[in-house]
């Protein structure tokens, strides 16, 4: 694949922990490059190491070897150039929705006047549909609304790269679709390079430009990538009606089934090659 630029580059990232028998390898030689503005979904079974990769890109975990660069500069720790939305929105219960968003805004835009920072936070909450809930505490919000606050918090900092760690994994399927639409509309207003971790095949197809398939751990690797051809802006019914939708869906589910749960990564070489071939076709 020829990429005009490598906005987000992950090269040969491995992560292992010391264990009684030598060391436990979670992720092995994971490499992936995203041009600016691309949305890539990493899909794989629970516990395969997807979130580990994302945490390393976020700078919240150190890689054992390999590295991550954004716009050609290697990252060192966490930074405001990367916005992260976590599965659990991690809101402080004693702060209102507005104050939770302000927490990040105050830190990143500390040189701007107070009124301007408040406006930034308010606008971000408005964009996710929470204009009427600025002063509510997390305990007064539904799980879906709380995750909207989490998304607003990430977007308010206007990061170059957005990292999504199963952001809708704890929501029921209807709320999940609602929030996927919120995300699509936010990204149509401010295009970003996005790396998302999910185990939901439909979510990956609806949101991403490319799906990265991760083999099951231990020593999880990139098993191949799959181009998603649906035109943008995307609308759910049109995507579902697209001629390729169900064949792509079948392919992804086939990959996941072939991976099984916790099957050794070595046994997956066949499927890996197959999916890799499909990428050339797509």
């Amino acid at each position, binding site marked *: 694949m020829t990429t005009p630029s490598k906005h987000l580059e992950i090269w040969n990232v491995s992560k292992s922990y010391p264990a009684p028998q030598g060391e436990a390898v979670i992720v092995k030689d994971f490499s992936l490059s995203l041009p600016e503005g691309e949305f890539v979904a990493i899909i794989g079974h629970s516990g395969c190491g997807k979130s580990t990769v994302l945490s390393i890109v976020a700078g919240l*975990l150190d890689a054992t070897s390999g590295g991550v660069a954004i716009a050609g500069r290697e990252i060192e720790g966490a930074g405001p150039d990367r916005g992260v939305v976590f599965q659990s929105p991690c809101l402080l219960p004693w702060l209102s929705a507005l104050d939770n968003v302000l927490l990040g805004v105050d830190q990143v835009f500390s040189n701007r006047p107070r009124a301007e920072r408040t406006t930034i936070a308010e606008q971000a909450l408005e964009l996710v549909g929470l204009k009427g809930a600025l002063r509510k505490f997390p*305990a*007064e919000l*539904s799980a879906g609304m709380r995750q909207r606050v989490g998304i607003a918090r990430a977007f308010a900092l206007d990061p170059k790269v957005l990292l999504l760690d199963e952001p809708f994994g704890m929501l029921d399927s209807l709320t999940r679709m609602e929030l996927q639409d919120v995300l699509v509309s936010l990204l149509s207003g401010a295009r970003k390079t996005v790396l998302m971790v999910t185990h939901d095949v439909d979510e990956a197809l609806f949101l991403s430009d490319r799906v990265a398939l991760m083999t099951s751990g231990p020593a999880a690797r990139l098993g191949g990538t799959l181009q998603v051809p649906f035109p943008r802006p995307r609308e759910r019914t049109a995507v579902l009606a697209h001629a390729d939708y169900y064949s792509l869906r079948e392919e992804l589910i086939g990959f996941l089934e072939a991976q099984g749960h916790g099957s050794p990564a070595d046994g997956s070489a066949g499927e890996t090659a197959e999916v890799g071939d499909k990428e050339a076709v797509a």
Partner: protein
Amino acid sequence: MAFLELQNVSKGFGSGRQRVSVLRSVDLSVARGEFVAVVGYSGAGKTTLLSLIAGLLRADAGQLTLDGREIREPGPDRGVVFQSYSLLPWLTVEQNVALGVDSVFPDWPAEKRRDHVLEYIALVNLTPARHKRPAELSGGMRQRVSVARALATNPAILLLDEPFGALDALTRATLQGELEALWARDKKTVVLVTNDVDEAVLLADRIVPMTVGPGATLGPAIPVNLPRPRNRKAVNHDARFKEVRGRVIEYLLGPARRRPTPVSPSLQEAYA
């Protein structure tokens, strides 16, 4: 009037025919320095009760006062530890604890705040991990950070919402022991809500059983007159321990019990 006083407190969610009463006519008095455990089923309304005391929810009816003042909103006089750790993933242990200290003691010089933060990190035995981020910590370590953050703001009362519910049994036992030691050190007023009867018997001065919601209320308090520090193993042979444990379980399984019914979608989701 007791240090913490709840009189005739009711709280429901939703409106019209969808309305569900979660708590009905709850009375509770907690003395200064007392450790009270509210024990009940999941979904009974325990978290709602604690959120009301924390000021994160407003009661529909009734009165809540702390040290004679009405509770209207959250405040630094109440430290809260939730089952989900509520740590900010991009901050280190030290920064997460400092978050609370900086907001409650903005007038202190930076150095004093820092020393204070480090003191409480040491208290929960996390000094070697103070520069780590939550992703690098185990569940038990994360909950220690939450406890340190809550205690470091010197709250008048500590509110604990199933703080050890997400931990494995061994880690839970360790943290319960640490909590008792911390409590014995500065005798803070504590309200703990839990579904673990043994946890309540090990830690509390008094146990208040909660009936099953909707419309949950509190049953008669059961005093726990066991000497401290309480030994997790010894209590199994102690007749007084068995007696208290039996009374709590009997109340919860007895006529007061109605089938646990889901309270409301928003509550089920809360702290999931």
